[in-house]
């Protein structure tokens, strides 16, 4: 008679109690999936949104650009960097960009802001949130040397409309002030006033000329990945390409967006803490149930030990019951969680009435619709954690069963 079979039959002897206990495990699975999947979705969303706001999942830039982002810090051959990056598996796009600070003026008004110089022939809305959120006009074409795209808030401040002129003044690579004239071809609205009031898209060629850059120079190459979780390994691959160059550095989104990375880290830790506390409560319930079952069967254990069952085998028997509870709980957990997960992954819960459409955190816009996304690693982690917790809950009852003596147990009714 295998101990595992005995353990299963013992559980099924008290079907109702076992099913109720298994359902508490299943509930733990549901909660864990809810916390983890909502987090995975939100974090992925925020990371991808921050990527398309300018710096990508990875950025290749001048070694010192991150510390002092002045326009003299540049990649001399950004085009070559882009070509190399596109050959790496996992990289879906690479965009050459110049980013810096400038003064923007129209008529009698002026505001400070930031510009992102892009190549209209290669930029796509998939990798540029400002193109995705155009509300008026269009992106300037490759032939439009002086086209600009401004945010809705800036347009409001400077009284700009499509076709109106905009003057922008910046410091070139030699530290000299330079100015250029642009004409508004499009207006975007992300919903975040701090972004809409400060960011302007400019033509890459115009900015290169104005700054006195080399024909292939740029501030950085923004690299986009199929999976943001591959940022660190792909950084290692990229860094090897330029290991001999002292001027080129590769930054992950965590390094270029430390506020966002910190926010996600803290939120994730809090998430784990919450799951752990919920897990403790569930484990306490499981332990109580198993302990009750052990106490009720003391005479049975006494007989088994009298017949020659080793204390270790008694411990194993109770732990196997715990194992079976964990397996049953996981199966029930998958059954009750699947429809919930399916709904949340496709429809989600819309909180835009509560938090508004323009809620941001860590400098990044947050999607007000809460949805689920569960990576395979997260699913496996949840299954492993829930199962382990069930097993741990069985340790004390198992040792309680194994430590008693047969003669004490045989005296029980």
């Amino acid at each position, binding site marked *: *008679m295998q101990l595992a079979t005995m353990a299963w039959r013992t559980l099924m*002897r008290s079907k109702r109690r076992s099913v109720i206990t298994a359902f508490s495990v299943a509930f733990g699975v549901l909660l864990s999936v809810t916390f983890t999947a909502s987090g995975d979705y939100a974090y992925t969303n925020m990371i991808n949104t921050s990527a398309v706001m300018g710096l990508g999942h990875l950025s290749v830039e001048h070694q010192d650009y991150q510390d002092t982002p002045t326009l003299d810090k540049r990649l001399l051959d950004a085009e070559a960097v882009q070509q190399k990056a596109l050959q790496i598996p996992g990289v879906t796009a690479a965009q050459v960009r110049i980013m810096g600070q400038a003064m923007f003026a129209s008529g009698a008004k002026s505001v400070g802001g930031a510009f992102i110089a892009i190549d209209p022939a290669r930029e796509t809305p998939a990798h540029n949130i400002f193109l995705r959120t155009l509300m008026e006009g269009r992106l300037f074409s490759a032939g439009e040397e002086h086209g600009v795209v401004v945010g809705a808030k800036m347009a409001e401040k400077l009284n700009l409309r499509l076709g109106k002129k905009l003057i922008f003044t910046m410091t070139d690579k030699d530290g000299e002030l330079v100015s250029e004239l642009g004409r508004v071809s499009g207006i975007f609205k992300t919903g975040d006033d701090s972004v809409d009031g400060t960011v302007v898209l400019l033509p890459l060629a115009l900015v290169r000329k104005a700054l006195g850059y080399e024909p292939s120079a740029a501030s950085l190459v923004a690299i986009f990945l199929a999976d943001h979780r591959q940022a660190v390994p792909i950084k290692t691959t990229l860094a090897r390409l330029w290991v001999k160059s002292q001027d080129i550095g590769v930054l992950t989104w965590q390094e270029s967006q430390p506020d966002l990375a910190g926010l996600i880290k803290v939120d994730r830790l809090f998430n784990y803490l919450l799951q752990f506390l919920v897990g403790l409560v569930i484990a306490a319930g499981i332990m109580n149930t198993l302990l009750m079952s052990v106490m009720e069967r003391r005479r049975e254990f006494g007989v088994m030990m*009298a*017949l020659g*069952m080793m204390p270790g085998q008694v411990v194993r028997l109770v732990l196997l019951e715990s194992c079976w509870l964990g397996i049953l709980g996981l199966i029930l957990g998958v059954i009750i969680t699947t429809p919930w997960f399916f709904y949340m992954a496709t429809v989600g819960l819309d909180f835009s009435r509560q938090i508004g459409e323009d809620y941001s955190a860590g400098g990044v816009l947050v999607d007000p619709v809460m949805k689920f996304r569960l990576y395979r690693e997260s699913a496996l982690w949840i299954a492993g954690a829930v199962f382990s917790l069930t097993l741990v809950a069985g340790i004390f009852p198992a040792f309680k069963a194994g430590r008693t003596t047969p003669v004490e147990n*045989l005296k029980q009714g």
Partner: protein
Amino acid sequence: MRSSMLPGLCKLGCASNSAKPFFGSLSGARLRANGILTAYENKELSYFIRMEEQTMNNTPLVQLENVSRIYQQGKVQVAAVTEFSLKVQAGEFSVLCGPSGSGKTTILNLIGALDEPTLGKVRLEGRDLAELGRSGLARLRRDRIGFVFQSYNLNPVLTACENAEFVLALQNIPFAERRRRVMAVLAEVGMAELAERRPDELSGGQQQRVAIARAIVSHPAIVLADEPTANVDSATADAILDLMVKLNREQGITFLFSTHDQRVMDRAHRLIHLRDGRLERDEVRG
């Protein structure tokens, strides 16, 4: 040679001092060399040879030497057994009898390695049980002692067959061998056709038969039976006792009972009378 024949050989050996040449001519070593015995059958043969040697050397199977068992109940010390000595030889069909509280069950627990004496020594097959740890005592119970309890104590989640083979499973006997032996023993106790039933599908008498099968299937040195007829009707009790007498006579299994059931006492070769935890008198019958 099949293991079913070994009990018969033991009976021959136990009954007669002239058995030594017989066993000598059928030594385990020679049989192993001829590839006749399996490893398990060889182990069984060794057991029977050992029993034979004990009988011939007059070594008691069980020996209690001035044993006392004192329990602490709150602030009071209660002596369940006081300075009790006993020798039980292999092949006996003996009874510990006396009024309630006389120490019968305590003595059975001490012999069965379920409890340890406060004073004195308990030996089984010459081995002092105090020298064994928890695991050693568990192994001893598994391999050398069979138990029949008053309330059968079958595992409710196992079938009759699985209950009977429980000890063999603990001994890691292969499944096929296990089943073969258990079915033979269940046939012996008249339960072969009900082997797949669970305890809640069996009567009290049937459950006790399964318990007896469980106790004897591993050929223990001794079977300890604590009030085995207490929870069955008269007819069933007689049938069970006759079965035990038959096993004792034909297979030489040693039985030691704790009971005040006259039917058991009538069948016993030896009555060990207890009172207040002490030996009152030791009555050997013809």
